[in-house]
Every structure is written in C-alpha cells, then in structure tokens.
C-alpha cells in the first residue's frame, strides 16, 4: 500500500529507485524530498542569483597563466561566467571536446581523425619557397612529412591551387610546385602577391580549428580543439555524435536545438565554477538556463536580455537606462499593474513575495454575513 502511494508521490524518474526499500527508509526519503522543494512564494530567482554570484566573487580574476604547458589556453573563472550569462555570440576561446565511437576509440584513430579536423593551410606544408627570377616563377618545396601527417599529396595540393589561383599556371615535379603567371609581360610584384596568397590557401580540415590536443580521459580518447565547428565535426565518421560537445552555446543551439543549448549553459557554468573550486546547487543553474532559453532563442541576463524585457516599467527603469524606459513607456502609454517585487517596493506597497503573497480568500465582513 505504502509502496503504491510513494510511487505516485515521486516523479516517474525516481519511482523505480525506491522499490525494495523499507517503509521507514521510504518515509525518510519522502521527508527529505519534501523539504527540498521550494514553497509557494519563495523568491527562487533572487536565491538563484545570490547562490551563483556569491561563489563567483570567490573565483579568481586570472584567466590565463598557463604558459609552457601543453594545454589549450581557454577563458576561465569570472570572465567565462560573465561570457555565458551575457550570451556572447562568440566565446573568447571556442573549444570542443570530441569523443570517438566505440570501434574508433584508439590513439591511432584519434590521430587520424584529428588530422582530418585540424585546419591546414599551404604554409604549414611548405619547407622552402622562393622567387625564381631566372625562370620568372615562384618555387614551393613541400614537406613530405607534414603532407603525410595531414593525409594529402602533391596532386591534391596542385588541384586546390589550380582552383584558387586562376591567374597562374601551376606545374609540379616530385615535391616541388611552380607558380607561373599566365600574363605575357612579367611583373615581379604580381608574382610576389600571388605567392603570398598561395601560402594562405586552405588545403584540408575544418576551418577555424587551429589547435588540437589528444588526451586520454579514463577509457576514452578525447580530442580537444581550439576553435569550434560542431556541425562539420559531427559529420566526420568515427566521431561519437552523442558525447561530442562545444563550448559555443549559440553553435550548440544552432546545431542541436535550444534544449541542448540549455544543457550547455548549465554544464559550462557548473564546470567553470567547479574548476575554480567553488560549487552551487545545480537547480539554481537550471533555473537560470530555463529563463535564458525559454523564448526558443538564447537571451542574455542584463540590459539587452531578461532585465530589458521585464513587463513592468518601474522594474525596468529601476535597473538601467531609467530615462529611456520612462520616456518609451510614456510614448506607448504603458500601464504598470504593480505585480512584481521591485515596483511594489518603490511605491511602498507590500511586495508579493513570501509572506506578502498570502491573501485572504474571504473578506472579514463577508464571512460575518454582513454583505
């Protein structure tokens, strides 16, 4: 009997977990669960804000001091938290964590996939290049080792160069490539410009991913990248599409949807805080992530996001840009129904929060039957 009652009491997710426990234990869990719920009228927003910002004051302002280490230098601590809650379109240091499929979970495969991912430009494959003034052409000597590491060859590179440099003839022998201008009359300046342009031509990999580190985390090989391109990485064969993540929340929203972005906000925040040695209850972050994403697009917490979209004029004017909000409200003829906390404090009313939310259902004289 008690079992059935309790299984109704708990959310379905936890209902199975309590089967088999004694009635006393179940009762204890129930009591604890009950005590963890917030009550009607509790200021969960303010509590969440305080629970995040107080630990945040303890994080160091240092964001980079990782010189000389084989680590990606990423934004950490308070700057990163600000970045998340401000909903910056592009993080200062976008990174990815790429996990591999079960059958590809080896170092060799990880290296293979890493080579496919890293953005390779021609200059990274060159061992020597010069202007050959006698034959009036530019000479590029390719590095064989670098080429095999990036899984490319001379023919492939020549084809890419031909596509990109329409004004030049590309010829090659062994590991050398010659660039000759198609124009009849020789112009050194133009040849030099073409040579410099050729150096920056994109050959292979995913654009924007500049650094790669392969690490073993427990039993998995993880590829960490500097630069992020979730859509293209997920298309690569051998990449675990479920576990691979990016720290660019907008990209996550774009590729995987807003629910994924909501989870990304929670994960990024809690990871940043734990990395700094501070912690908070995850439910505060869940609330923040919910309000940031409930419009189906990511909105910042602040003047141009949540605070700027509050319903009450007085509430908005209280936060920032007082005059702007007052004048716009006057032009639009807005009415402030005084339904939230801060506007009632301004006016001097009882704020509808906590004890202030309680109202009498029956008026005194009505109950006495006078009316």
């Amino acid at each position, binding site marked *: 009997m008690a079992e059935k009652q309790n299984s109704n009491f708990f959310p379905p997710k936890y209902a199975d977990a309590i089967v088999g426990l004694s009635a006393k234990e179940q009762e204890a869990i129930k009591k604890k669960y009950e005590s963890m719920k917030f009550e009607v*009228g*509790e*200021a969960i927003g*303010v*509590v969440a*804000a*305080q629970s995040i910002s107080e630990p945040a004051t303890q994080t160091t302002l240092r964001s980079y001091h990782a010189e000389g280490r084989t680590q990606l230098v990423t934004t950490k601590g308070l700057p990163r938290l600000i970045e998340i809650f401000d909903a910056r379109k592009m993080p200062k240091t976008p990174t990815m964590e790429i996990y591999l499929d079960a059958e590809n979970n080896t170092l060799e495969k990880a290296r293979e996939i890493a080579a496919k991912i890293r953005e390779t430009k021609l200059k990274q494959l060159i061992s020597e290049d010069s202007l050959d003034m006698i034959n009036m052409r530019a000479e590029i000597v390719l590095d064989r080792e670098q080429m095999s590491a990036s899984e490319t060859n001379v023919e492939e590179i020549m084809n890419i160069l031909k596509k990109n440099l329409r004004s030049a003839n590309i010829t090659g022998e062994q590991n050398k490539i010659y660039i000759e201008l198609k124009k009849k009359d020789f112009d050194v300046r133009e040849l030099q410009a073409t040579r410099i342009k050729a150096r920056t031509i994109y050959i292979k990999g995913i654009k924007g991913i500049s650094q790669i580190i392969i690490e073993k985390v427990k039993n998995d090989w993880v590829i960490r990248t500097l630069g992020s391109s979730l859509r293209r990485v997920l298309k690569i064969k051998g990449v675990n599409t479920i576990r691979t993540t990016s720290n660019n929340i907008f990209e996550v929203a774009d590729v995987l949807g807003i629910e994924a972005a909501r989870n990304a906000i929670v994960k990024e925040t809690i990871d940043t805080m734990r990395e700094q040695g501070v912690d908070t209850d995850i439910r505060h972050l869940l609330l923040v992530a919910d309000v940031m994403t409930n419009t189906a697009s990511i909105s910042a917490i602040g003047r141009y996001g949540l605070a700027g979209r509050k319903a009450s004029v007085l509430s908005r004017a209280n936060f920032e840009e007082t*005059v702007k909000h*007052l*004048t716009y409200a*006057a032009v639009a003829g807005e*009415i402030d129904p005084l339904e939230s*906390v801060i506007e009632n*404090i*301004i*006016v*001097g*009313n*009882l*704020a*509808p*929060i*906590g*004890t*202030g*939310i309680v*109202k*009498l259902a029956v*008026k005194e004289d009505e109950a006495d039957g006078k009316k």
Partner: protein
Amino acid sequence: MSEIYLNGEYVGTTKEGRELVKSLIAKRRQGVLPWTMNSSYYEEKDEVQINTDGGRVRRPLIVVENGASKLTEAMIAQLREGKLTWQNLVEKGVVEYLDAEEEEMALVAFKPEELTKKHTHIEIDPMMIVGVGASLLVYPEKNRGDRSNYGSRMVTQAVGMYLHNHNLRDDTTAQMLVYPQEPLVQSETIHAAGVDIHPAGQNIIIAVMPFYGYNIEDAIVINKASIERGLGRSYSFRTYVTEANRYWGGQEDEIGFPDPSVRGFKSEKEYNKLDSDGIVSPETNVEGNDVVVGKTSPLRFLGVVKETRLGIKNRRDNSLVVNAGEGGVVDKVIMTESKEGNRLIKVTVRELKIPEVGDKFASRHGQKGVLGIIVPEEDMPFTADGITPDIIFNAHAIPSRMTIGHLLEIIGGKAGALAGEKINGTAFKGNEEYIVKLLKAAGFRDDGKETVYNGITGEKVEASILIGMIYYQRLYHLVSQKMHARSKGPVALLTKQPTEGRSKEGGLRFGEMEKDTLVAHGAAITLRERFSSDKTTIPFCETCGVTAVVDKIKNKTYCPLCKGSKIKNVDMSYAFKLLLDEMKSMMIYPQVVMEEEE
C-alpha cells in the same frame, strides 16, 4: 657599439661602454662631475645610461676599493671631533649616493667582516637597508616583513607628544598622551629622528595568556588600576574658528551675546556658558551643541515687510557651536584678526579620553587590538613577586603572524627594567645573549616565563606565563569618536528619508543588496517596514490620477486639472511622489490608477 642615453635621450655611441661608465664614476668621485650624477652599463642591451635628473630615489653607501673601505679609522676620529663633515665625505668620494640603476652594478657588503675584493661598496650600517620608518622599530628583522610594515604604519597613528609647542598652536584636531614615555627597548635611530623627545607610547607590563575569553580575536585586557594610574590617558583637542565677516551695504557679523529675538535663537541653556562679551572663557566646561562664540549675521534675504514692522530683528543666529557628542573644557581662546582685518576667534576645546572598551592599542610589531575588558587589579593574575600585568595579550596572536620581535621585546623590556638600563633593539644589532645575562643576574628565568596565579580563584596557572615589559601605543581610533546608532532622528528635507552620516545623527543605509536578502527570505512585511521611513499620505484625483491641491484657506481639496473634488488619499513612499513629480517635469504624465485595498 654601445648606445649612450643621457636622462633617457639618445646622445651617441661608443665602442667601450663599460670603460666610459667606469671613467664617469671615477670623475664623480674626484669631484669633477656633480655628485648627483649616476651612470650604469647594461651588458645584455649594450647600453650606457647617464642620469642627472631629479626624482630618482638614491641612497648613500661607503665606497670600497680593493677590498678596503675608503672610510678609515682616522676619518671616523676626525668625524667625531667635528673636523670632517658628511659633505666632506661625499666630496672626497668616500661616500656616494647610488640610484636604483647604478645599484644593479654594485656589490654591497652588509657588514665589514664580509668584505672581499669583489665588493664595490659597504653599508654605512647594516640597519640602513630598512627605511627611516622601519628603523624606528625594534627587532624588525625578527618579524615577518609585512608585520614590520604594519608596525611602522601604526606608529604614525599613535597618540603621543606630537610637538612641544602644542600650547601655542591652534590645530583643528590634536591628540596628546598624558604620560608619554621613552621606550625601554630602543632603536639607535630614535634619537636621530627625535622620537625620544616626542614619544608616543608607554612601557607596560604584559602577560601573554588568555583571560576568560575577553581577549579573543586580538582583544586586550587592561588592568583597571593601571588606567587609574594614567595608562593610555590622553587629551583630544579641537579648535573651532569663527570670523566676523563684512558684507555689501555696510552690513557685518556681530560677535556678542545674541538677542533672544534673533532668528534661529536656540534656547537660553545653550548660551549660558558665554561671557558678557559673547565668548567663553578658558577652563569653562562645555558640552555638545553648546555655543562657544555668540555671533549674529544679517539675513540672506530680506524678510517680509510685516515682520520688519513688528520690530523683529533683521538678523539670524550664526553662533559657533561645539560638535554634537563632543565637549570638554575650553583650553584656550585666541582673539585675533584675519587677513582681511575681520575679527577672528579661535576656541580650543580639550577633552580627557580615558581608555574604555573599544579603544585601539598596538605594539610596535603590527600587533593591534581593541580593549576587550577593564579588570580590577585584584582579579588580574599575579606572579610570585606580586606583580600584576597592565595588559593581558592573547597568545593566539603570535603563531600565524610570526612576530618574534614582539616576544623578544617583552623579554628585552623585562631585562632592561630589572637592570635599569635601555636595551638596544636596532635592526640587526639586537644582543639576545646580553638580555639573557641580565635576566639571570636578576634571578629570573632566561625565557621570561614565570609562574602566575589566578587573581580570582588564587589557583596556580598550570602553564608558565611569559610576562615582561613592552612599549604599547594608544592609537587615535577611539570608540567615543566613532560609535553611532539611531532609532528615530533627523530626516533630509527633500526626500523625507533619514539623513546620512554620524555627524548628522544619520541612519545606516539598507541598500540594494540588503533589500535582496529580505526578498530572498520572503520577509515581505519586514521589507515594507524597512522602506517605510518616508511614508506619507497624498491626495490624488480619482479621474485624472494626479496629486490634488490642498487649499488650507478655503479648506478645500481639488484636482488641478479637472477642478473636480473626487479625491482619494493614497499611502505611498514620499520618494515615489518625488519620482512622479520628476516625471511630470520631463513631460511625462504619470496617471495613478487607484484600487481599494483588500
């Protein structure tokens, strides 16, 4: 090729940069080049820097040549006789001043014993590596660096004999210790800096032990009998100034006993300290808000005609008043003239400040603490000799701060007191063996510890307690000048909210973040109460939603827009009414829609 820079500007190149610098320095020592010039050679950059400009921090060192100091015994003897001066030594190249850049090239010996052929200079005294401030402390080298730093900073806050002509001065505020003493454990620079004739502290007996929790968190316990004997007693002086100004139209301020018909006349009580000339006499007891100089000024604006006809004086009270919460005895009255030839009166009030719970004390080792309790002498712990400490200091203040100098000064002070001599505690010159010798000769333990008995129960204290003498300072942060609380009191005219600041008997602000804490607790009614300091009832027009006009003559309340009389009284904070007014001034019509309260 080395580049040469003169005062940071490029002037040329040379092949032998190092040689150039050497010859420049040699020329300076000969007196060919000015003694204020400094030059240095940078090996890695291959640069020669020559500096002659002002603003460089420089310090004097004795020149060493071939492992021998240029300052000879003969010179020292001549210096003693006064045949040589400091300037002579500088001119002779015996002593030279190095700036930070040239110091990089120098190898300075710390003591004469360490001198080798490699050294280029030697310190005039080992103590010279600390600055003037830190050299006034004793045993600074035995403390952690930051503690000595805090200590030298707190010396500047100590109450003492700041000047000897204080009786002739009219400082706005001044503090004087009643019985200042020269420290028992001294530094050699004390005399040079004149601190021995301007002492700021007293030698007290200290016991390092707990006392029933009254000295936790750096608090100190003081013996009541010691305070009654004058420990830490000080006077605080404040000078009030007033000037009889002249205004256009032949009007001027008048100093004298103000007529009761004058505007802003306080009450007889405040003026009764005044003499017949309207100025207090010296040695009069005054309290806060008492008038010390009666003064009337002409009105800023001319009054209503009716008032002038009624014969009310056209003057306002502008008397000089003692600050609220202060007071004391009038120390001196100075009557003089200002630059413009106006009458100028200065009244100095002196107030005795006896140490009380909350006053701040500190030793010279960055060990500051607040007075926690004043204990009667009979309850203080005592030694076998019957000695009771003046101050009980908590031992927890020592381990984390590592102020060994503090402990050493206690032992040194004890030895000095027993032997009747001053102990040298100069940086790097302290002699611990000598202190131990003195203590043993007097029949005490060499670590300064003694058996102590509980003054309340008479029981023996199990641990042996470190008890000795130390120089303690009273710092000028006195509770009587800082403590502040208010329930109701004055409000600001504009906002009807409480005033700000101790001097205006103001409230303590319950700010934005404090507000959030109440919101987080859901304490809505407390929140309303906190923010209802400026609660007012304002009549509003029901149809137009604007503040109504109250005509007191016709006894009528009406709306300024529709002239209607459908008026409702609304309770709101006065600040919100101001906000509505301000919005109206920027052409926004804030209509208040009213609803009956449930």
